[in-house]
């Protein structure tokens, strides 16, 4: 007998399974998956304000601009204003913007260990916790929000949803293929392992800047 | 003011520790129950609720004593104990002891529903707004674990303390932290227990209160014993029953 069958067999014995209770269990499982019951959820109003407040609480910085065309100039200003490099790696999804026109040296593609600034979009943004929801794919490699020391995320205002449940619902509806990685990002990487003192930039970005468009 | 004895009978479960160590606590409890308008009765054959056996894993011993307790006390409309941990045993654990004996389980549940810790009974059931005694001095209250987390005894003793004009109530830090007694834990693991009760003593001293009041004699002996061992002869450790009944002297 395989270890798999042995473990499952012991689970069935412990549960006192018979053919009929197994059948009932399968029905319960399918019903649960179909029902997708939610627990208590976050409020669904004032999404923008809550998103900004929560994102700042998670130590993301937040800025706004009116149109997507303004994004490169905003990024350039913010980077210069903070004395950060103006060489950036941009996800393919944002390749069409005029990065060079804003004075940025932009490479489109997946980040490597040498890239210092990564620019990404986001699939959705979650107001409840000030969180970005990033789905990996050819247009949006996961590494771009992870390897660079600085992560700038472009957040279309209409992508801000109340909570994770709302984001999952939209993912199920919109994504034709389920992404390999869904990463929820709430501010810069951090650790408190030594004496419970919070330090930013443990392994991922030291800073996360959110640019809300619209 | 209710007429004495007009509200029916209340059986006092003295608890084995009070019987053995501090009878005055039980007399104070009788005084408080009577002042609330009840006839206080002390069933004579009572001994122990069985908690030491229960917590040692000797369920058979605990079950035998639970049967004895149920038979003795179930005829009363209310059962009151000057201890959160003993009342908690009856209220939350007796029904579990008879999971496989429906008849006894029903009796245990019926008993559990009318068993109360003393201050819980006085405030939640009797609705008392006056207490017989007064006490002059600052008092901090230690929330014993079973009373707090099994029975929800939190505001009741404080409400009653606040009825005493001479009491200045002060909260110590971490008043809900365990004192490290834990029944046999205190003698089985004295080193751990000693370190925990030391923190409790530091919190009591830190509050600056003249007295610490509490609802369980086990915790009381643990805290008093440690304070005295530390050379603190001044901080008074008082059972809430004695304090409310006016049976202890205050500050100056």
């Amino acid at each position, binding site marked *: 007998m395989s*270890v798999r069958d042995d*473990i499952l067999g012991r*689970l069935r014995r412990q*549960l006192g399974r018979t053919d009929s209770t197994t059948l009932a*269990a399968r029905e*319960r*499982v399918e019903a*649960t*998956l179909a029902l*997708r019951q939610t*627990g*208590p959820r976050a409020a669904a109003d004032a999404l923008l304000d809550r998103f900004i407040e*929560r994102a700042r*609480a998670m130590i993301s910085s937040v800025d706004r601009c009116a149109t997507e065309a303004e994004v490169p100039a905003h990024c350039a200003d913010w980077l210069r204003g903070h004395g950060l490099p103006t060489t950036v790696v941009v996800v393919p999804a944002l390749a069409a913007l005029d990065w060079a026109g804003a004075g940025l040296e932009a490479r489109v*593609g997946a980040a490597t260990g040498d890239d210092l600034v990564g620019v990404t979009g986001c699939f959705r943004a979650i107001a409840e916790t000030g969180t970005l929801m990033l789905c*990996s794919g050819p247009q949006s490699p*996961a590494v771009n929000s*992870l390897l660079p020391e600085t992560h700038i995320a472009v957040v279309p205002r209409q992508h801000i949803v109340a909570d*994770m*449940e709302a984001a999952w619902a939209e993912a199920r509806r919109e994504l034709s293929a*389920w992404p*390999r*990685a*869904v*990463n*929820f*990002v709430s501010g810069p*990487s951090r*650790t408190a*392992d*030594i004496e*419970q003192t919070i330090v930013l*930039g443990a*392994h991922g970005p030291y800073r996360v800047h959110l640019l809300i468009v619209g | 003011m209710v007429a004495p004895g007009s509200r029916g009978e209340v059986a006092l479960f003295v608890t084995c520790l009070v*019987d*053995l160590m501090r*009878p005055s606590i039980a007399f104070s409890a009788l005084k408080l129950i009577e002042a609330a308008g009840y006839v206080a009765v*002390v069933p004579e054959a009572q*001994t122990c609720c069985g908690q*030491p*056996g*229960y917590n*040692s*894993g*000797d369920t058979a011993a605990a079950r035998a004593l639970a049967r004895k307790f149920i038979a003795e006390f179930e005829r009363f409309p209310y059962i009151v104990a000057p201890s959160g941990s003993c009342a908690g045993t009856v209220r939350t654990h007796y029904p579990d002891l008879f999971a496989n004996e429906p008849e006894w389980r029903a009796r245990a549940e019926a008993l559990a529903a009318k068993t109360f810790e003393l201050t819980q009974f006085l405030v939640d059931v009797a609705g008392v707004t006056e207490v017989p005694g007064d006490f002059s001095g600052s008092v901090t209250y230690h929330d014993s674990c079973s009373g707090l*987390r*099994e029975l929800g005894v939190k505001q009741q003793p404080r409400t009653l303390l606040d009825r005493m004009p001479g009491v200045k109530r002060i909260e110590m830090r971490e008043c809900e*932290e*365990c004192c490290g*007694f834990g029944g046999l*834990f*205190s*003698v*089985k*693991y004295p*080193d751990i*227990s000693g*370190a925990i009760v030391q*923190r409790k003593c530091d919190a009591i001293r830190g509050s600056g209160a003249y007295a610490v009041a509490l609802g369980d004699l086990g915790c009381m002996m643990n805290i008093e*014993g440690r304070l005295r061992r530390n050379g603190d002869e001044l901080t008074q450790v008082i059972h809430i029953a004695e304090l409310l009944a006016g049976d202890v002297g205050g500050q100056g």
Partner: protein
Amino acid sequence: MHFVSRVRQRLDDPELQRNLKRTRGRNAASRAAAVAAFPDFDAVRARATEIRASVLRDLDVWLERFEQKAIERGATVLWARDGDHACDLIIDIARRHGVRTVVKSKSMVSEEAGLNAALEAAGIRPVETDLGEYILQINDNEPPSHIIMPVIHKSKEQVSELFARVHGTAPKTDIEELTHEARAVLRPEFLGADMGLSGGNFLVAETGSVAIVTNEGNGRLCTTLPRVHVALTGIEKVIPTLEDLATLLRILPRSATGQAITNYVSMLTGPKQAGDADGPEHMYFVLVDGGRADLLGSEFEAMLRCIRCGACMNHCPVYQTIGGHSYGWVYPGPMGSVLTPLYQGLDKAMDLPHAATLCNQCGVVCPVSIPLPELMRTLREKQVERGLRPWSERIATKLWAWVAARPTLYALGTRVAVRYLRWLADGRDRIQVMGVAPGWTAQRDFPAPAAKTFRELYAERRRGGGQ
């Protein structure tokens, strides 16, 4: 070493006691603040409890469903009988893919299995990348003392000295500098490793995914950069849907550190897909039994709901006094006092279920409502049932129960006891050395009893006219 000796050693270690004192109560305070700021906490706790309990009721079917989905997504699902078997499976995977270095993000199951030692013995280099776990690994593979804050028992000075010695750098006392030194050491490891090993906070049956919760980002690096990703976790970690994940994520970080959410939550589903620029080429799940199956349907089943948040130890007066290493195995605190005897054998951890005051601070804060004190008490019961308690204790309990069932004898016994204690007190209000309970008087005085029992005084009062 015996539990009591381990405890004595920890209590006598001034550095450890200083370190415990520094952080004592801080996580509890953070959790309390997070709960106060989140009005739905109790309702979420109830729902989280129900989710975990409902999975356990049908764990066999949920696991099959998870496996089917994971396979559909191109992952390989392996089943491990126990920790040793999990190590064998992982070494096989490593050999199959020519792996020399494994970067690891935090996995308590890996600690259960002793994976690092097994990998090293097989010539494969494990590199812990969680800052705390890394510190422990370079300190001669010291075990963690807390399930989510593995080096809570260390001071920055100790870390500084360790880094200076191992990295050959100048000693630093600034925590930020120490953290960034570790970052610089570990970054090339992530970039160069062939395999990433992660734990799994949850396995989502709906999608066949593993969800990983981290703050540092090492979990993301381990599961994104290397060619092979292995998720090592227990069979009890399945949850049904993405909605359930959302619910559990509201309660896990709040219970653990008081955070509303961790910095990163990663949901990983299968290997790299066509067109993906990143991600592992191979993804494996290693699902470990290791004693879990036996708990299902038993009186200890509630323990399988555990989501490893650490709230129980953060609120435990005993853990906060003796630290995690005293417990002797991987899991410390109340959840460890239940799991260790269940996974390692009742007779291997006789003290743990007793070394608790049953104060129930743990039960009150547990995000999935595990009645931890009840489970410890049930373990005490099992020890008695199997005759594992010392004979002296068994006889004492029986004798006490026998006497307590006989009121007349009991009354006589207490009369004698009071006189004996009064004699010991010798006219004072306290007893300082008591032969029958030396443990008591080792730490505190024993207040002397009143001259007579309540029973005697009450009888006198009644005789005196029933005042």
